[in-house]
């Protein structure tokens, strides 16, 4: 479980996050949604330690990320898997080397153990045939899947995905969503996904938080989101003309 308490962050005097608190459960896909520039990615970066919040704390199963010793922080980092928006694959390494990278850097596993683990993760995301290809030789959807394989190779307890569907066609988006949901449930990971893709919200949003101008305006499950009476959320959900006509 991940808990965030009163997270605030400002850049050059402009408040980007205004005291956000929430709890994200284990084995669930937790979504953070909102329009562009509402602070979703900053919140994610605060959670994974890339941006230090001005105030508040982030608890990983009770362990405070920003108020613990370096060893605990390091251990927590090794329990995280992160899928970045563009995949963030290392250009100079093959798909296989990218997935093996955390094992090479952070474990003392034998070559055989690493090979088996990498093969398993690539097979899990359906990319065993692309192991020897370079990131420049694969499609955007494949890059995301390699990113997922790299994120899960260390058996993370916490998985963070920053807009996993951006730039993908609807069919590939659904496949990526299903893959993330399957992995979350199978390995009982606490997964947090940043998205503004409505398909994802409806398909895999077990717990959804809506951010608007740095504030948390709504939190709930996907079955309730349609019934919301928060004007900003309604505007976000029914921005599409067709959907507006279907509004309850």
């Amino acid at each position, binding site marked *: 479980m991940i808990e965030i308490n009163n997270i605030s962050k400002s850049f050059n005097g402009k408040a980007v996050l205004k005291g956000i608190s929430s709890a994200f459960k284990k084995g669930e896909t937790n979504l953070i949604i909102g329009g562009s520039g509402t602070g979703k990615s900053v919140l994610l970066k605060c959670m*994974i*330690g*890339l941006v230090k919040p001005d105030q508040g704390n982030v608890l990983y199963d009770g362990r405070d990320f920003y108020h613990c010793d370096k060893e605990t922080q*390091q251990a927590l*980092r*090794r329990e*995280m898997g*992160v899928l*970045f*928006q*563009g995949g*963030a*694959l*290392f*250009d100079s390494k093959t798909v296989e080397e990218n997935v093996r990278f*955390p094992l*090479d*850097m*952070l474990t003392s596993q034998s070559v055989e153990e690493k090979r088996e683990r990498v093969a398993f993760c690539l097979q899990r995301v359906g990319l065993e045939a692309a192991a020897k290809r370079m990131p420049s030789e694969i499609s955007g959807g494949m890059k995301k899947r390699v990113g997922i394989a790299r994120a899960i190779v260390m058996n993370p307890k916490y998985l963070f995905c920053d807009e996993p569907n951006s730039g993908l066609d609807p069919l590939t988006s659904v496949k990526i969503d299903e893959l993330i949901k399957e992995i979350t449930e199978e390995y009982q990971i606490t997964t947090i996904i940043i998205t503004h893709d409505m398909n994802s919200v409806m398909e895999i949003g077990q717990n959804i938080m809506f951010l608007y101008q740095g504030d948390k305006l709504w939190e709930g499950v996907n079955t309730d989101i349609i019934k919301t009476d928060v004007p900003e959320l309604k505007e976000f959900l029914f921005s599409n003309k067709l959907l507006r006509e279907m509004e309850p």
Partner: protein
Amino acid sequence: MSVLGKYFIFLGTLFSKGEKLSVYWRRLMEECVGIGVSSIFIVAIVSTFIGAVSCIQTAYNLVSPIIPISTVALIVRDMSILELAPTITCIVLAGKVGSNIASELGTMRITEQVDALEVMGINSASYLVLPKVIAAMITFPMLVIFAGFLNIFGGYLAGTLTGVITERDYMNGIRDSFVPYNIFFMCVKPFVFGFLIATISSFKGYFTQGGALEVGKASTGAVTSSCISVLIADYLLAQLLL
């Protein structure tokens, strides 16, 4: 001043919390190839022609019955060892290696590859930059020694082929009044320049923010700052060591 302070803090992070030695060894070998071996061709071309031009121009300016023609070779040798090989080669390398380092790290930064390393708990500055700095400090002196040899060889080729100096006079000039300390001085310079070029270019690239335009700016800034720092360091080393 704040940029200078940030630069020194950045240098500090290179040496804090490193990774496994085997990782660094592999990265160092990759960088030695990337920085050193891939620069051999450009260094060879530049050095040979600079040596050739030095010989021809020195001979052109040294028309006097009281100065022996072998002095041309002596001047080419000393110019090469003291200045042309170390400084001009490193200026060329600042352009080639500096821009490469800055654009590589800048692209890694804007495509979140640096963030990916940080999230894994890896000291990204140390992992990415330290091998580059050490590789530059190892390979730059080697390239400069190679450049010095080719400077003198280029002078020999141009001098003897155009007939401005005979082979015998050139060889005599090369051996005349040789000061071995100058070789030490020649090797110290690229060691310092390599450190400056690699760290400044890495600093520019590592802190790139934005997109492709900013990567280009970081690359240009890296070359400009590296060249200026090389020239300042060149002057200071000459004052200190000669």
